[in-house]
């Protein structure tokens, strides 16, 4: 299912031999995107950080046994991340506490900021109502900005199945939003 050359090919053999500097490069390359993926899935930053750390530690432990050519390393890492997030979601109810908001003191219009924050939280609550697999499709395609093919590959499903999931996800979210009077 791999598509093209793995962009991490240059560091994988080094990490497999225990090179921590090469591992630092891997972290540098992917920590932002993976932590964003986890944050979007579980809905809060602290748990997302813990999951992201787990993903990297699993990667470090797995790489000596890595079989090149099966999938890109980042695809494998995203799969681990999404599975970890699903496990987490099944055990915990997500909460929103720290969405790194801008400092109110630097906001030129606090009322607008508050309204915007409330709207953001409101949309997030609606997003929480979307079933896990549909949410995963939304996260990979919209927030991770992966192609349809990469998203399907990460979820280990066909392109057609992914498109169907994505469509259902948008429809579900739209219904939840429309069920309340608050306009988009």
């Amino acid at each position, binding site marked *: 299912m791999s598509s093209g050359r793995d962009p991490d090919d240059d560091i994988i053999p080094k*990490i*497999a*031999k*225990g090179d*921590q500097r090469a*591992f*630092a490069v891997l*972290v*540098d390359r992917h*920590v*932002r995107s993976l*932590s*964003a993926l986890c*944050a*979007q899935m579980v*809905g809060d*930053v602290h748990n*997302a*950080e813990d999951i*992201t*750390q787990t993903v*990297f*530690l699993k990667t*470090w*432990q797995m*790489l*000596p*046994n890595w079989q090149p050519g099966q999938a890109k390393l980042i695809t494998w890492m995203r799969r681990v991340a999404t599975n970890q997030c699903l496990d987490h979601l099944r055990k915990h109810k997500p909460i929103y506490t720290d*969405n*790194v908001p801008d400092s109110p003191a630097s906001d030129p219009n606090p009322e607008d900021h508050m309204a*915007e924050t409330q*709207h*953001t939280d409101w*949309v*997030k609550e*609606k*997003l929480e109502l979307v079933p896990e697999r549909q949410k995963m499709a*939304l996260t990979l*395609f*919209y*927030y991770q900005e992966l192609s*349809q093919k990469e998203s399907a590959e990460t979820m280990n499903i066909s392109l057609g199945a992914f*498109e169907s999931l*994505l*469509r259902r996800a*948008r*429809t579900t*979210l*739209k219904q939840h*939003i429309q069920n309340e009077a608050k306009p*988009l």
Partner: protein
Amino acid sequence: MTQDEFTVLMDTYGANRERWPVSSKPGALAFIKDQPAIADPLLLEARKLDEALDAARITPGTDMLKARILNEVSQLPSNQPASTQPANSNPGMKYRAVAAMMAISFVLGFAGANYMQPNNSSASEAVMVDNEWEEFADEYGMGDVYEWVEQDALP
């Protein structure tokens, strides 16, 4: 592209044409141009949902996390797979096993010495090795042994 096909495209990928599949783009753009009265409301509705999705975007900071991950990895043992590690790659394990064996032998030997040689034998003669202890326990049964120890009545 038909109206139904355009609706499915909007429902699946939203209004941002950058997200549309390459194969659908020409047909969708032609539909927008030819049928604006139908396409525009669908585009508007899809754009609102896109904006809602954008509003729910979470952007975590990563500097502390990066340091945390690297610190954690630096404290882990070598990440070499078990199948490729030489047999003596973890000498500590071997020494721990030997130490454990010695400790067990010592404890059993000390206990055995108390059980078997309460009277005249020297300490060195009184040390009981594992297999002797097992034979002793097998012969008399552990319950009996403990009872004899308590009563100081070993045979």
